[in-house]
């Protein structure tokens, strides 16, 4: 199938792009197109106008300092994944990105596009939630920052207003002594996961906190606090907060079992990472 007709603009500044969006309530942003164009071709979306942000200079920046990683709206997954500073300062971003689609898709898909697309099957929204990240957006009345928990409001629905563009995402740095891990089960490496899990462990002994984020285990990306839970109970404690569904790829019962297995796996790996990082 082919997309239905739409208008097309290719602005050269963010302000101009925002004006185009504000002027047409049926307009949509086109970033990497790796999610949007399939929706157009299947006619699941039929915007009246596409505002292609790909030629706006400067939006592809990846800035890293000791506070964290700031990823511009046009930074492709591939560029973020290849950045050694990103890997050093917030390794969970790189660990998760290696599981986002195939290399060819990562050459065009953007990390910010993936965050605002708000797919509960996607890796990066969970990472944003778990690390306490945020998205910076620009609209007609200026810029604002949306913290990750306020970004995800429904299946495939983010809290951006129709005339707002996400200009960058921020992932805070991994704290000293903390550890992270990511793991997912997909039918083929690079395909959407049946279930995926990311863990963040901080502190030791009495002070330890354990949080795990899940993809494809409910309608929304979800983070569960598993601090103080016994190792044998981890999976069932997580499942109390999750709602894994049935589809053609897997049954709910199988997804629940994957939650149990992956939770144990990522918590153990994050603890090992924390210990290694402390040495």
């Amino acid at each position, binding site marked *: 199938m082919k997309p239905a007709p739409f208008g097309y603009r290719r602005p050269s500044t963010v302000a101009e792009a925002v004006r185009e969006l504000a002027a047409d309530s049926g307009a949509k942003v086109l970033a990497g*197109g790796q999610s949007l164009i399939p929706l157009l071709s299947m006619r699941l979306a039929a915007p009246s106008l596409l505002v292609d942000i*790909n030629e706006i200079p400067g939006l592809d920046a990846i800035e890293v300092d000791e506070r964290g990683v700031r990823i511009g709206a046009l930074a492709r997954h591939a560029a973020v994944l290849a950045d050694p500073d990103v890997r050093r300062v917030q390794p969970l971003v790189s660990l998760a990105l290696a599981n986002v689609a195939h290399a060819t898709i990562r050459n065009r898909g953007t990390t910010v596009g993936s965050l605002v697309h708000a797919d509960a099957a996607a890796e990066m929204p969970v990472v944003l939630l778990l690390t306490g990240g945020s998205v910076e957006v620009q609209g007609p009345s200026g810029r604002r920052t949306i913290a990750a928990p306020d970004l995800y409001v429904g299946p495939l629905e983010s809290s951006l207003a129709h005339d707002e563009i996400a200009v960058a995402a921020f992932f805070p740095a991994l704290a000293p002594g903390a550890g992270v891990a990511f793991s997912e089960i997909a039918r083929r490496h690079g395909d959407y996961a049946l279930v995926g899990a990311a863990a963040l462990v901080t502190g030791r002994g009495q002070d330890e906190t354990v949080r795990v984020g899940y993809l494809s285990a409910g309608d929304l990306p979800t983070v569960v606090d598993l601090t103080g839970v016994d190792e044998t109970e981890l999976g069932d404690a997580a499942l109390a907060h999750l709602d894994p569904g049935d589809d053609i790829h897997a049954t709910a019962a199988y997804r629940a079992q994957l939650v149990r297995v992956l939770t144990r796996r990522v918590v153990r790996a994050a603890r090992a990472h924390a210990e290694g990082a402390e040495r």
Partner: protein
Amino acid sequence: MSEELHPVRLTVNGVTHRVEVPARRLLSDALRHDVGLTGTHVGCEHGVCGACTVLVDGDPVRSCLMLAVSAADHEITTVEGLAAPDGTLSPVQQAFAECHGLQCGFCTPGFLTTITAGLRENPCPSHEQAREMIAGNLCRCTGYQNIVKAVERAAQIGASDKAAS
């Protein structure tokens, strides 16, 4: 209502083509129908199969997931641009011929472009890396074993070409 057409300059395999297309024209369709290069194949049209993969500024990209209007001012290489001007096969093409890397050939253009770029980035892949390189492409004839062999053979040909020059 007639649809607005956009004049677009597409540079494909070093040749510039001026085409007039609606904004919704996919790059894959523009290459096949407007430019007349039918080597790029279209399978799934939603990014899963990889048959339509072309190089944009040297990187492999799904041409079914890019609009022709967005491709203006970028360098595109299709499977037709891989052989030398005199018809000499590229190392990857030669390796596919030697290793029986194609059966019906429908998926082949996407594999050839993907592997060409993959070997540029990693000229001597391990067996595992060779498999990973083609993991995003589907072959309905399931010729994967021979395609992986072709990746490894192409790396050998590339290395001996480099040693010879």
